[in-house]
């Protein structure tokens, strides 16, 4: 099992009232599995990703990634786990616009202290697979949305993490580009990656192995048909 979330609880105080965002949430994702989490805007999907990534500290419960616990309260250890075990893909790509594609892709490797020729070679291979090798010397600001998302995926893969977290990865893309990105994410399963996608996209529901719905702080298993009916 790559990701295990056990009984995680998180609440926020909004306008003086305590609002339960995650209420004893449990979830697991195996290697080679893609799991989708659906839910309305503001239901706590991003908070769930932040808890998994060790950026938001849960009030109760624990997160285990690739067999090791996420040490939320020790930032150095949490950051180390995030750097080595997790790759992130965002709706808005979160790229350094004034840096080249290559610089963006190897940023996690630099943080890890591995930006030598081996890493560069590996980065080139990933960019080749994602069809962005030709753009490696270009600034990401000039790329299209689909190309940016491919760069983001390449960056997520450069440290070869077992877990990929994707937050609405197709929301900012046109239909065809979205399909391509879904194909790429879906294809990561073959490489043994565990993929957790937070989305509203029905196409992703259909390609996922399991689907969960997050509402009122609770996570419940559902299926694509039920979500479509909603």
């Amino acid at each position, binding site marked *: 099992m790559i990701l295990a979330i056990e009984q995680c609880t998180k609440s926020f105080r909004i306008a003086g009232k305590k609002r339960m965002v995650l209420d004893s949430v449990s979830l697991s994702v195996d290697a080679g599995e893609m799991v989708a989490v659906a839910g309305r805007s503001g239901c706590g999907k*991003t908070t769930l990703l*932040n808890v998994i990534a060790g950026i938001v500290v849960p009030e109760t419960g624990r997160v285990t990634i690739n067999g090791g616990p996420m040490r939320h309260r020790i930032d150095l250890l949490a*950051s*180390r786990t*995030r750097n*080595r075990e997790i790759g992130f893909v*965002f709706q808005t790509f979160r790229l350094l616009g004034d840096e080249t594609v290559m610089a963006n892709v190897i*940023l996690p490797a630099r943080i890890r*202290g591995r*930006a030598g020729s081996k890493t560069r070679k590996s980065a080139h291979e990933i960019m080749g697979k994602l069809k962005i090798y030709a753009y490696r010397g270009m600034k990401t600001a000039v790329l299209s949305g689909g190309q940016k998302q491919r760069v983001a995926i390449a960056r997520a893969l450069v440290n070869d993490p077992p877990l990929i977290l994707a937050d609405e990865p197709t929301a900012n893309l046109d239909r065809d580009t979205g399909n391509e990105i879904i194909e790429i994410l879906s294809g990561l399963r073959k490489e043994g990656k565990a993929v957790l996608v937070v989305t509203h996209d029905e196409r992703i529901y259909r390609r996922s192995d399991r689907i969960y719905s997050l509402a009122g702080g609770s996570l419940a298993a559902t299926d694509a048909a039920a979500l479509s009916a909603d």
Partner: protein
Amino acid sequence: MRLLTQRLYLLIKEVLSVPGISAIVFFSVLCSALVVGVFDIAGENVNRYIVGRFAGSVPPNTIKVSPPPRREMPFLQVETERRGIGEAAAARIVAMKGVASVEPVLPVEAPMQGGVDFFGFGYRIDLTALGVPASLVKDALKDGADRRRWNRAETGGLIPVVVPKSALQAYNEGMAGPNGLPRISERTAKGVSFRLFIGRSSLRSLNDQVEAAAVITGFTDRPGLLALLIPITIARDYNRRFRSGYRTEYLHLYVTVKDHRSLIRVRRAIAGMGLSAETGVELSENILRLQRSVSLSVAAMKTLIIILSAVAVAFSTVIATISRVEYYRIVRIVGGSKLFIGFTVLVKYGLIGAAGSLCAAALLERASETAAAYLSLPGLTQGIGVSEDLAAFLFRYGVLLPVLSAVPSLARLYTRGLGGD
């Protein structure tokens, strides 16, 4: 090692990133440090001008130290007991902080007469004499030869004498006029020799009395007593000769202090010793009050300038940090720790601040040299320049201000998550 190299690379990259924004912080630190430095130099010079040229040109009064006044019984009109200021008390006053010099006045404690010949008539008069150092009668010892004679005088040789101007005036008005004697002027009297008889007077004659040749060396208003003034070494020798078991006791001490502040402190300390300390403190108090007012005004203006400059630097740093928040957030996402990001940001602004403040100090120093060459106001040009203290202050100011200003933005970044899309 590889990790360190990569972290260093990211650190350098961050320092050199967004040069436009970094330049704004750099120039805000530079301008701010320049303004603070210029105002500090100007303020210090105004202060120094007041203290050095104004307060310094009005020297503090001298303190006249006397033995404490004695309470006399109404039926006892005559003092029989010796009283004076002992050597120990004088030494304590000499050692006091702020005392520039102490000039003692030592009474000759033996009967004395002076003898002169006027047109074949021998004329003798009882005298009192005081021993004083040359510095107390320097106005009467006009040339170097007089001062040397005073300082090297011995009991067996010619004794230099300084006559109180009031005594000369009293003779002319009270004795010469009514008795038909010739009047004496300072010019005609200077250099006149006469005889001194020590150990005898019209009332008393002691054994071992001494006759010595004396010469009038000059006239003085100090110390304002109606007695001849002779070198203090001579006075001490005569006292030892005519008083068995003689112990030095001064009649007065004239204490000169270094500055106005010392005048008030030393006067209080002397009074605390049970001695009488006479001086006018009003002048010194007024000058000190003026100094305090000027210092306070300069300090208030400096504080205001520092605050305004600090706000400008803080504002530019906050804007610069906020403009980089997305970068820091991305670095967090891909595994950068709070410690690494915080260190990078603080080093970046520390380096920019250091560069800005050092440039400001260098510019100030250069400008000061130019200004010093053109400004010739007395008391003002001497102080122009960047002191080590000012340079150190500007450096601390330049480094700490942007670093501290970046902290709130970092804290805000840390307390928030990755942000939803």
